[in-house]
């Protein structure tokens, strides 16, 4: 009991520090007019990745979740919108080339809008996280190609954060129809859109066939990880053949392979990890 009190005090202190450190409170908090204005700004500046209605758009996280991975309060959200998140596709205000730079007031409007769109988390989890983890590393074979928290394979995207950045529906769709929407891979700041996990098959000069996913590519060279996780650095004009498809290297998990219930458990596991 004593321990718990200390934890409560610690959390309170952390909140206090966070509020004091950033730009205090949202001056427009709860203002429906500001939320409406924020919706315009959101559409222009954010919806490209976060989707209409802030529900996530395949590139950016679903922002309608009440619990967010990167921000605990309005002040932190303001900072993230202003400065972006280094190492991710989230750009600093005014640098995404899509919209225009926003004023502080407009950023607060967006924060207010996002808050107005949030839905309360479901009362109970939609699946069994522990069973989902078992499946992930066991029968469902996910870990052969995907990593979570440093454990697993390298061929597919690391899924440690996917639960925090994609909707359940998007994750389920990716498992059922992996080729529907290839996952974004390398976040290359100089490119508009990051490289995708395209499947590639090449035949080298000496007749060797290599199949894998592209790590990166330009008109003259390609960097491939093969099924055995070996990296091949190849010059295109020296290849006998170069074939790329948008069929994902990931097998299609239909309900015969993974039942709806089992899939729900896997997604619950990923969500529990990703929301950390």
């Amino acid at each position, binding site marked *: 009991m004593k321990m718990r009190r200390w934890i409560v005090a610690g959390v309170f202190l952390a909140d206090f520090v966070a509020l004091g450190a950033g730009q205090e409170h949202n001056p427009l908090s709860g203002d429906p007019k500001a939320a409406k204005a924020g919706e315009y700004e959101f559409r222009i500046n954010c919806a490209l990745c976060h989707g209409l209605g802030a529900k996530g*758009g395949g590139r950016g996280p679903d922002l309608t979740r009440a619990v967010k991975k990167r921000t605990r309060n309005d002040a932190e959200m303001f900072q993230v919108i202003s400065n972006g998140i280094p190492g991710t596709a989230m750009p600093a205000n005014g640098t995404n080339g899509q919209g225009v730079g926003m004023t502080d007031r407009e950023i607060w409007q967006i924060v207010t809008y996002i808050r107005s769109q949030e839905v309360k988390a479901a009362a109970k989890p939609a699946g069994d996280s522990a069973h989902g983890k078992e499946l992930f590393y066991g029968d469902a074979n996910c870990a052969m190609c995907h990593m979570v928290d440093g454990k697993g394979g390298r061929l597919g995207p690391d899924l440690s954060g996917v639960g925090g950045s994609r909707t359940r529906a998007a994750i389920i769709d990716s498992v059922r129809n992996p080729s529907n929407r290839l996952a974004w891979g390398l976040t290359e700041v100089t490119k508009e859109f990051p490289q995708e996990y395209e499947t590639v098959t090449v035949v080298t000069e000496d007749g060797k066939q290599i199949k894998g996913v592209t790590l990166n590519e330009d008109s003259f060279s390609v960097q491939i990880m093969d099924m055995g996780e070996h990296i091949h650095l190849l010059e295109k004009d020296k290849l006998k053949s170069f074939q790329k498809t948008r069929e994902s290297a990931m097998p299609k998990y239909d309900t015969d392979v993974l039942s709806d219930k089992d899939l729900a458990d896997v997604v619950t596991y990923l969500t529990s990890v990703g929301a950390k």
Partner: protein
Amino acid sequence: MTFLARNSETWRSSSPSMCAWKSGPFRAALRAIGKWAFMPCVPGLKRRAFETERGAKAPLFHGCGKIVFALYTFSILLAMSFAQVTSDRLVNSAKEPQNWMTYSGDYSGKRFSGLDQISVINAHAMVAKWVYQVGATGKLETTPLVVDGIMYATAQDDRAFALDARSGRPIWMYQRQLPGDIRPCCGRVNRGLAILGDKVFMGTLDAHVIALDSKTGNVVWDVTAADYRTGHSFTVAPLAVKNLIVIGISGGEYGVRGFIDAYDADTGARKWRFYTVPAPGEPGHDSWSGDSWKVGGAPAWNTGTYDPATNQIFWPTGNPSPSNRGDARAGDNLYSNSLLALDADSGKLNWYFQFTKHDEHDWDATQVPVIIDTKDKKLIAQADRNGFFYVIDRTTGKLISAAPYGKQTWSDSKDADGRPVANQNASPTLKGHTVCPGALGTTNFMPPTYDPQTELFYVTARDQCDIFSKAPQPYEPGHAFYGSAYFPSEEAEPYLGFLKAIDPATGEIKQKFQHTSPTWSGVLSTAGGLVFSGDAEGNFIAFDAKTLKPLWHFQMGGAVYAGPMAFAVDGKEYVAIAAGSSVYAFGLP
């Protein structure tokens, strides 16, 4: 070459030489006169003599009478070879292919260099000659100018700089102190300078037009064109015409009322302004419903071209505001998304051609309109953002042909004039639906090239479709005014990027090269049978102009958002382009 260093107070580096001087008859003439004049004089006199030429008071003629004559001759030759950039030189720029004196290289907008030292034969051997790291983050969209061995360019944070074009060594740098609350539509960028006389000219993100001394970078004049707080800004490279500096405003996403201005190059006094959205009582005003014209947009943010024979400026305009919702601005919304033919002296409109009427897809027509002369026709060609390649009679403004050069779904019929007409499904909806091309367009601001040798028009093209949605949005001064937004359509993935060679005579695509992904690079053609362009992956590529087969490439480490150009110094050809946050110059080993 000491005299050069003496002649210009700002050349701190040693004797940057002049192409015109170093090669050809000037060199021979100057050498001969110099030899003759100085032979009997004491060593060291040479330097002092040139001080005299600059107007120094010390008498230096003792015993060397013929020096007077020599100096006189020198001064004439010097005036010819290092003259300021006169209006005549700009008109006759083809005579000095070593220089690149306007955004597109000449008034016609061809972005064609007459240099042929680097050619299909030897392009494979090209090497990087120098790199100048600008040090600004963001997109470097500048096309450098080069005049008599000096390169002048800009960066996205409104700095301008001069470099020794042989080495990339800086000569001067000007950095604008921008207010913190500027509202540059669509990002902080700058596409370059104009040069005239001994000044270079820049439009700034806080909507000023400034003239800088081309030898020092000092501000000569600075005028306010509009209020930046209402979303006005300049990103365009101005165009020097006669004694005027012509420039168009940005701010189509802020509900500005667009205009094209002309300023006196000497004083900065505004000589004329053409509003691209007509006021009540002016022709074309009835193409706007209600008060929508007041915030009608139609900016003019890419550099136009000029026909000295008819004294007409051809300048393209951008989207009407708000860009994705046309409900409140019923009508054609003149002169948005149009090509304007303006009298250079008065700014009076001679004719216009509207590419996209009542645009709701952000399809600014701000592409460089390229002047092309055939045996019997005076044409102007524009590869428009809406996906069609237009050829127009530039004396009348009448459309000659319009052919698609990329994926488009918005038009499947043409009007009596041959102009593509929007179909029923083109307009954005509340929920959003897919239209091709996307808002970024089949092409965008990246400058194209026309190669008079292959008679082909080369343009960077993109196949991408977007989901266009709309929503009511009130206008608020200084706030983004889109009327909703667009998203890349997943149905239409992957987005494809091309370099396409279009035959203006037929509209047919003769050759194409597919990039790994869409690029924002401009295109250059040269008399060496080459076409140059860059890609989003950071490559700079030399293509055979006939086949579009890559002959050479260099990985620059940053995506390209700029147009390439070519120049020569000391008889050596260079090709330059900005990529990432640097300017690169390439040449033969």
